[in-house]
């Protein structure tokens, strides 16, 4: 309503902010030509692949670093240093290394997803109650079994928080990735419409990105509430 009103009252000119019907028309036009579907699918595929790879590497590395002190000394300083590199700074390097194909885009998304998952998981593992680990030791469980049966389940809440933040980052990074030399995707649609000054198309892309990001978040939240039903916290209580 605010949007509609502001255009109608002349706060914004129509070329700056087109009213909703115009944007809807633009969306339908894109869809009819099959471009919107292609954009959404291309972006979604990059997010899924990049997030999958980044999160998987983060879980493996995070578990190793969290459980063994030795590997912490090896990996942690490097990873902490890498973490301080700003997002965009990766793009030129990846372009140079991996070409302008899918590879650098997926890698960029993977980097974006990796750090939140890794950081949260390591913190979660460090916070696992030593007393629970001791119970497993009394039953003579080995290191791998303790990690699998006690440490990982106990740090699941933190892992899921990491995955949620990682997914948000993945959506952020995919747009950045698509700014550079892509011919499909919602990020490409944004830069493309910038060149042709099509604000309506830009808004279509933005709305799609927002919706997809929201759906991802809801999906992970749903998994969270299912998988963490055992938690005895304020948040859990409120759900009952």
């Amino acid at each position: 309503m605010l949007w509609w009103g502001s255009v109608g009252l002349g706060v914004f000119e129509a070329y700056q902010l087109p009213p909703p019907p115009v944007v809807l028309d633009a969306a339908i036009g894109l869809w009819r030509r099959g471009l919107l579907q292609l954009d959404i699918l291309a972006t979604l595929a990059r997010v899924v692949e990049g997030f999958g790879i980044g999160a998987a590497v983060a879980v493996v590395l995070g578990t190793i670093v969290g459980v063994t002190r030795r590997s912490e000394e090896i990996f942690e300083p490097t990873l902490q240093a890498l973490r301080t590199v700003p997002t965009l700074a990766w793009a030129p390097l990846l372009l140079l290394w991996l070409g302008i194909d899918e590879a650098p885009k997926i890698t960029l998304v993977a980097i974006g997803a990796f750090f939140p998952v890794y950081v949260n998981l390591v913190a979660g593992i460090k916070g696992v109650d030593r007393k629970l680990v001791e119970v497993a030791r009394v039953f003579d469980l080995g290191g791998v079994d303790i990690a699998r049966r006690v440490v990982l389940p106990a740090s699941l809440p933190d892992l899921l928080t990491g995955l949620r933040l990682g997914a948000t980052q993945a959506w952020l990074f995919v747009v950045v990735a698509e700014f550079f030399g892509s011919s499909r995707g919602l990020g490409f649609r944004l830069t493309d419409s910038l060149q042709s000054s099509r604000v309506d198309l830009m808004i279509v892309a933005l709305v799609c990105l927002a919706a997809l990001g929201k759906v991802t978040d809801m999906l992970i939240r749903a998994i969270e509430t299912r998988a963490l039903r055992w938690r005895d916290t304020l948040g859990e209580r409120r759900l009952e």
Partner: protein
Amino acid sequence: MSRRLAVTELRKRYGELPVIGGLDLEVAPSEIVAVVGPSGCGKSTLLRLAAGLDTHYRGEIRVGNELVCGPHPAVGLVFQEPRLFPWLNVADNVAFGLGERHGAHAQALVRDALEAVELTAFAGALPKELSGGMAQRVALARALVTEPQVLLLDEPFSALDAFTRMRLQDQLLAAWTRYRPTLLLVTHDLDEAVYLADRVILLSERPARVADVIPVAPARPRDRRDPTLAALRVALLEALHLERDARLVTA
């Protein structure tokens, strides 16, 4: 089934601080022995060593004829707190020590253990839904399910109210009758010690040694109001005071 627990010339220090200084004790198969002593005298340390959680000590700890040099499937330990895995339901918590193969045999063992602590109806409950006493019963069942020959209990009921504690003591005895493990119980509750144990071992101030051994004669089931038990309790209390006074004099 059950085995003897024998501790000889046990010495343990944390850095410069000697905690256990030449301790000898023996628990016969299926016997119940309670260990009491001044707080901080190394009672819990003794159990940690016997459970194989800490192998830096001098002297010998044997289960049957085997030397303890790490966690042993024949030795179970119940901690002061339940320490249940919050993400597992009651039955899965009890089954934890049986590994991940949940065959029919494992299920039968879990059922038996839950029956022993009268929690069959709560098999599917999550730890957050249990009261403190129930949680500790689950912990007991988890320790019993692997049918340990020696069961160590570290002040298992100290966090519970008096009524729940008495109920759990009786349940422990019932479970002991069923599984007949050799039982070493650390407690600071003298009533508990004389009610449950065949012998009560009094430890000295740190570094811990055996200061006194008091046999508890009355046969089970015992009556908590039995004057013999009350007299033993007084004797224990006096011995504890003597122990402390001796310490004050030397200090």
